[in-house]
């Protein structure tokens, strides 16, 4: 519902980027980066997700002011769930 109508060209451009990123993920998975493999894969996934959220889901030009805070708080609480649970699992063996 953005006031500036997003162009079809932009959509196709994002789509091509997403496809390239998918190829990149697969390629990167077969390169030995040690422990960095997971980090790289997740970074690419996050980049793709951000593209989809900003452009395909029209968040970049969202009319509704609350959209961004809502999304950010969603991810914030997800990280809380993951982070505080892992706080237990990563420290159990230390005892």
């Amino acid at each position: 519902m953005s006031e500036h109508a997003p162009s079809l060209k932009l959509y196709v451009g994002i789509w091509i980027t997403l496809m390239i990123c998918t190829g990149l993920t697969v390629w990167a998975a077969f390169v030995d980066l040690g422990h960095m493999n997971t980090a790289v894969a997740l970074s690419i996934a996050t980049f793709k997700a951000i593209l989809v959220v900003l452009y395909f889901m029209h968040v970049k030009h969202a009319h509704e002011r609350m959209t961004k805070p809502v999304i950010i708080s969603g991810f914030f609480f997800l990280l809380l769930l993951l982070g505080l649970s892992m706080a237990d699992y990563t420290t159990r063996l230390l005892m």
Partner: protein
Amino acid sequence: MADSPVAVAHGPELRHHFADVEQQRDAASLGMWLFLVTEIMFFGGMFCAYLVYRYWYFGDFGAASKTLDIRLGATNTAVLICSSLTVVLAVWAAQNGKRKMLITNLVLTIVLGLTFLGIKAVEYAEKFEKHHVPGATFHFEGTVPGHPDLPANANHAEMFFSLYFALTGLHALHMIIGIGLFSVLTVLAWKGHYTPRYYTPIENAGLYWHFVDIVWIYLFPLLYLIDRH
């Protein structure tokens, strides 16, 4: 999922309790986003389980992950990304009052969604054949990646497949709901329900579909690409 985003939408006319169209639209959009936040947390619980066990049993998870077909997984990722494009084109068409383009893209989305589910079904069938479905008949042999003489623990591999089925199953369920939604929307679009003034259901169903796409964008590397090198 008990409810569908369609329920967020209202009749074409301005509903009595809203002051103006803009308020109505903003409310629908905010409502949809809040619903997606609950969806994030819904998948989040499963991701948390995945994270814990992957941290504990990294090697065994890697071994189990290797048996997944990376070509099918990557193809499905591409299929979903294409469907996201068709969805966004459908929304654009609705916005600009191009009914034919709207219907074409909605149908394309449904076709791509069904393709995804078809490929998923092929993968599930393969798991049944290989006895990789958790339960009494489960059987797994493999070695931990990077340690050719270290056999992977079959119990932990079974946990991986439990999570695999839970996560992809829940995702597939969302896909099915999404396809159902788009089928309804296609019929309504055919009847000319949507105008540039009123296309909230298309937009909200689109948001839902993109969300399901994003879940897969994460599932693909997390399930298929553990320790492949």
